[in-house]
């Protein structure tokens, strides 16, 4: 499974793409595959503060719910409106179906995250869900 090299990843299966000051967040294709058909995404409002490592929302399938953990701290500037009516877009292309955009509080947060090759290694070790 190709994981974009310009993304960074968390062990909770979120991806983050950043230019140093702003960032875009989503969940990985591994995550959507584990969840199954996604039926609902709970996201914060514009202006909300995210704290690295803390939950900021959730993703629901028919049989399971997964919390979403902020890869970095910052303020939400934009929320993807498509996901409210078509959450299945995450199943279709998880790396294109962004969830929210934010300004970064501490760009150094990203240093601690996994690269695409680290992440691929991590999920192959984690095995089945």
């Amino acid at each position, binding site marked *: 499974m190709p994981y974009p090299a310009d993304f960074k990843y968390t062990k909770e299966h979120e991806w983050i793409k950043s230019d140093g000051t702003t960032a875009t967040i989503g969940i990985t294709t591994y995550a959507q595959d584990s969840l199954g058909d996604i*039926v*609902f995404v709970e996201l914060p409002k514009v202006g909300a503060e995210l704290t690295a490592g803390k939950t900021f929302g959730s993703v629901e399938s*028919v*049989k*399971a*719910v997964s919390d979403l953990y902020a890869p970095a701290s910052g303020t939400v500037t934009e929320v993807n409106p498509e996901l409210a009516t078509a959450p299945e877009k995450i199943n279709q292309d998880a790396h294109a179906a962004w969830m929210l955009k934010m300004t970064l509080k501490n760009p150094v947060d990203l240093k601690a995250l996994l690269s695409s090759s680290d992440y691929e290694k991590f999920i192959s070790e984690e095995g089945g869900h």
Partner: protein
Amino acid sequence: MRYLPKSPADRKAMLEAIGVNSIDDLFSPIPAEYRLNRDLKVPRQMAESEIVDWFRERSRENGDGHSTFLGAGAYYHYRPVIIDSLISRGEFLTAYTPYQAEISQGTLQSIFEFQTMICELTGMEVANASMYDGSTAAAEAVMMAVRLTGRRTVAVARSVHPEYREVLATYAFHQGMPLATISFSDTGRINLKELEAAITSDTACILVQSPNFFGTIEDVEAVAEIAHRKGAMLVVAIAEAISLGIVEPPRSADVIAMEAQSFGVPLGFGGPYCGVIATRESNVRQMPGRLVGQTTDRNGKRGFVLTLATREQHIRREKATSNICTNQALIALMANIYMTVYGKVGLKELARQNLAKTAYAADQFSKHGNILFSGAPRFNEFVVQTSEDPYAINSRLLGHKIVGGFPLKKFYPELGNASLWCCTELTSRSLIDTAAGHVAESERSVRSAKEETPEEVAR
């Protein structure tokens, strides 16, 4: 034992197949120090006829053959006989929760119809498939408002059923939800000035009941205006479901917490009853309890399933909207059949009769006692103040196998000798006249007792 379908030969064969000598071997995991080696001290096994006799005695000791004027959150209405005919079918009575939708379509479709009719009656957009009762539905509805607004405090009208408030207090205490109680005015309705002053930017919701505990219909629009202007939600509890036949539902409420017992559920000494939560579609994900949704199968055929289960305990575990698992499905089915029997025209007619009977009773009682809260409309209950302690009046009525109105001193001591009387379509005119006669007699004897002691200064 007649419920156990095994012969000694069966048991023997099974033990052999398992490869043990006796059934005791299968209980060896229980450490010997705890194993009970004596009979349980419960009554000896009874024949079916003895069981029926035993309960018949209890029935006789429980006021069978009495007429009642009690309401106060549990109402005596006629139950169409087809309710029991239908719910007694084994396929309804002994069915499990409809998790396996393919073999539970009967239960699922009937719940879907129930949800629809509750929406029609309450003016809400979605309704769940029952909570334990009106009191827990109210508590859960309040907690919903807390989650939805992100605020903490709750304003509760004192005219809400005292036991509903007690249950809410129990739930609230451990969720860090401060409760503010708002008193009622002399119309019996919530005191709007007091309410306005009590609402802050931390108020999650206002809880009122309509018709309220006194039978008085609240000015829901006015309460809603105050709530919404301050960013709080309005939760309305409904204890007498029949009122929805003739009283406008609280359409400006955000959440309605209902007790559906009046819809064909026996009084049964307090339970099982049927709570329901109804709300707007936008709140559905914070709604506790089971929900049935319509969908299609692989061949495009319409079917029904439990849905939005991710709110529930078996998936969310500690993040669930509630811990509720078992609900009141069979009782909801009773209510469903009842609503179907009466329907669009019958429910209105039924409610009208309740209104008429109560208006007549209040009128008759007003000739002797003091009817409170006449400044606002009421449904099928009214409050009367008597000179004599209502317990004494009721004691005499009991001698005639009549259960009088509910004395309010226990919950509202400031109302003195007030009692709450309910009349339904089953309350005959002669019964009302008899009760009114007793009240009249009571007032007369108190007056004459006063006249006999002229030294006493009459108030």
